[in-house]
């Protein structure tokens, strides 16, 4: 019996040491960081980017995840590309293009003398080969962006060696922007595709500044400089994308010098990174974190109830607290960088007194919130904390909330079923076009339009926006859509996320692009 007592005391002592250890482990890390920086200078021609998960596919036609995009954007190029820091369209593999008056015919004049990493020539046939495999009828179900990019395409014609013409069935203004995307649109070597049964997931081959060396599943993807690149060659000789699943392990890897750039971090580790002398870089993202009301069933069928809930939540205060200033409070669904954004449009103003009176009058006292349990790119603290923050605001206006949190996959299934009053979601833009955001609330697809919102006027505006050429008239259409959202309140925009990366102090020239992620060709390391 004495022995057991001793055990208990020992356990307590261990717990104490553990608690004491928390306080000074920061100092311990600093020591080890000093040790390893000397060894990393020996490998100064290699840049290591640590990310949280394996890419899904290194074939741009089969990838839809951020982890793949970050790698593919260094291997592949499309006919057009986004400008270095905006979503304006610039020439890339096509030097110029003509769009017919009716918006149905696109003619691209291709760059000459470009070679794929396997030595074959880039030409009109290669473009046709790549687009043809994703056309309606030919695309397989596992090509996630084939429909998004190529659904309006009637046919692709190779006019001569360096001219290609694309005919559309219907005019679609975002089509050109879609061709700049890293999903679906980039051109893969036809020879490589033929050798790999039409899927180069494990043996990618493009025209970009880096070429593929190896992919060790769940470990790393290694790239090396393409010395025959048509443009300015990449600065670093090797790039390694290292897979480190655990967020805190990734931070430690950065601080130890085992990684040069890491992503997937949140505000809580900022101090830890800065204390080690590294920098935290925040670049504007094209992502909106929002709350959706169930507009077809329950308490929030009523627009007044939805507006009252919006008025009960102090969004700027909540965002400041949860994301500690690293994300921006949102007033509209459209991120601020997209055409059509208007800062004068705001959701119902914060007024808890009026909200309390209104909700009391409408008899809204108990609501059911569903949320996701894991962090998402647009919500780094996870859905549970966000839901609890909202629960805190609503309890002050007399509304009790039950929160059910599920893992992401289960959550999506339940959300589509519509068994909720309030839920949380987010949207990351693909192509920098406002339609890409705004059409979400115009579809009948419950996996996109979670609030089941339907407005004839809104849908008309969206249909008109798709065929209107880029310009002020088109932007005005989306501003009008935003006004409808602010008034009808099917969703409450919460925040626009930033990309947060930890960058080692000796790394220069890194930028996280809103649409194409991490182009590393211009990054240098001292």
């Amino acid at each position: 019996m004495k022995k057991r007592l001793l055990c208990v005391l020992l356990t307590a002592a261990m717990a104490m040491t553990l608690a004491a250890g928390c306080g000074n482990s920061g100092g311990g890390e600093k020591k080890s960081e000093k040790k390893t920086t000397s060894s990393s200078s020996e490998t100064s021609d290699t840049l290591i980017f640590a990310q949280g998960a394996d890419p899904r596919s290194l074939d741009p036609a089969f990838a839809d995840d951020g982890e793949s995009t970050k790698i593919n954007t260094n291997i592949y190029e499309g006919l057009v590309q986004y400008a270095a820091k905006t979503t304006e369209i610039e020439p890339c593999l096509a030097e110029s293009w003509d769009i017919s008056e009716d918006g149905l015919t696109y003619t691209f004049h291709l760059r000459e003398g470009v070679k794929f990493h396997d030595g074959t020539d880039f030409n009109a046939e290669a473009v046709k080969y790549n687009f043809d495999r994703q056309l309606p009828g030919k695309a397989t179900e596992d090509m996630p962006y084939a429909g998004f990019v190529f659904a309006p395409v009637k046919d692709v014609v190779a006019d001569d060696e360096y001219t290609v013409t694309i005919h559309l069935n219907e005019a679609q203004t975002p089509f050109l922007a879609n061709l700049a995307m890293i999903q679906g649109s980039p051109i893969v070597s036809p020879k490589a595709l033929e050798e790999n049964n039409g899927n180069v997931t494990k043996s990618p081959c493009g025209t970009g500044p880096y070429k593929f060396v190896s992919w060790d599943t769940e470990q790393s993807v290694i790239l090396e400089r393409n010395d025959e690149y048509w443009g300015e060659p990449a600065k670093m000789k090797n790039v390694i994308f290292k897979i480190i699943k655990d967020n805190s392990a990734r931070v430690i890897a950065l601080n130890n010098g085992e990684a040069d750039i890491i992503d997937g971090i949140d505000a809580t580790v900022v101090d830890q990174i800065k204390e080690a002398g590294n920098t935290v870089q925040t670049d504007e993202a094209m992502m909106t974190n929002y709350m959706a009301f169930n507009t077809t069933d329950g308490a929030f069928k009523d627009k007044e109830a939805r507006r009252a809930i919006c008025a009960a939540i102090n969004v700027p205060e909540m965002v400041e607290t949860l994301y500690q200033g690293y994300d921006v409070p949102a007033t509209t669904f459209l991120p601020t960088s997209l055409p059509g954004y208007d800062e004068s449009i705001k959701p119902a103003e914060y007024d808890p007194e009026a909200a309390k009176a209104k909700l009391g009058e409408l008899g809204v006292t108990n609501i059911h919130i569903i949320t996701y349990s894991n962090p998402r790119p647009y919500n780094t603290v996870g859905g549970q904390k966000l839901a609890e923050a909202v629960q805190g605001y609503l309890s002050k206006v007399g509304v009790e909330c039950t929160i059910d949190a599920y893992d992401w996959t289960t959550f999506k299934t339940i959300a589509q079923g519509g068994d909720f009053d309030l839920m949380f979601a987010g949207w990351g833009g693909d192509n920098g076009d406002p339609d890409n955001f705004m059409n979400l609330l115009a579809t009948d697809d419950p996996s996109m339009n979670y609030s089941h919102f339907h407005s004839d006027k809104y849908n008309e505006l969206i249909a008109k926006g798709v065929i209107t050429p880029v310009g002020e008239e088109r932007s005005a259409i989306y501003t009008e859509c935003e006004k409808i959202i602010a008034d009808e309140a099917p969703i409450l925009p919460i925040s626009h996320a930033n990309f947060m990366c930890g960058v080692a102090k000796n790394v220069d020239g890194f930028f996280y692009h809103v649409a194409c992620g991490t182009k590393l060709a211009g990054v240098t390391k001292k």
Partner: protein
Amino acid sequence: MALKKTAAVELTAQEKPESELKSIWESLKLSKTAVIGMVIIILLILIALVTFITEKMGIQILPYNPNEADMSASFVAPCAEHWFGTDELGRDIFSRIMDGTKISLFVGFSVVIFSMFFGIILGAVAGYKGGVIDTVIMRFMDIMLSIPGILFAITLMAALGKGLDKAIIAIGIVSIPEYARIVRGSVLSAKESDYTQAARVIGNKDIRIIFKHILPNVISPIIVRATLGISGAILDTAALGFLGLGVQPPLAEWGDMLGRAKGYIFSAPYTLVFPGLAITLAVLAFNLFGDGLSDALDPKSRKR
């Protein structure tokens, strides 16, 4: 073990109940650690009762409403206004820990009552009846014991869903076999004793023999087990809460508080330290008391 139990049985048969209680207390008093444990337990029970009663009466005795978020005051380090600081939603950690006491104690006691109830019945039936019934019940208990307790509880929680009541059931089910085994062992030795034989001879029914004559004599090992079981249950609840399987937010549960604070271990360690200390203190108190009690109930050490 069996020998010890027989000794206890004989002893209790000779002495009167009042004097036994007194002698347990006398010997418990000798162990300083057990007394410390008992004082902490009484303190915890008082906190739990006071917060529970005042909450029911609508009086706010805690400095802050433990469940009320104040986003403008998140991550305040410990200071005069917030003794233990505030969490990520601006809730006062001191108030939450005080409020969490009743949850942890309630779960601890409920789990023990739940598992004791079923464990005693199953163990007594198995021990007294013997044969096939014994084999079936005890092999089933062995199967349950072969699965690590917390894993089993997590699986049950995944099936039952989130909530305090379900946590009690899950942890309770997991702890049944321990009681069943103790009771069965004691019953096996007690049923061969002369007074049991005598009770049977004068025509008592099995149920009456089990509850009236056998169980009162195997109660001491059960009490010791139950005291230690409470600390185990508090720890298991905290583990489930830590994994996000425990309570419906915004309820303050120590393990849940610890789990949600783990992300802030470097930036705001106080969000983590205080719930951790609360768990440690409660578990330590029940363990110390349980150990002292087990010594006090052991006739060999008592008669020292």
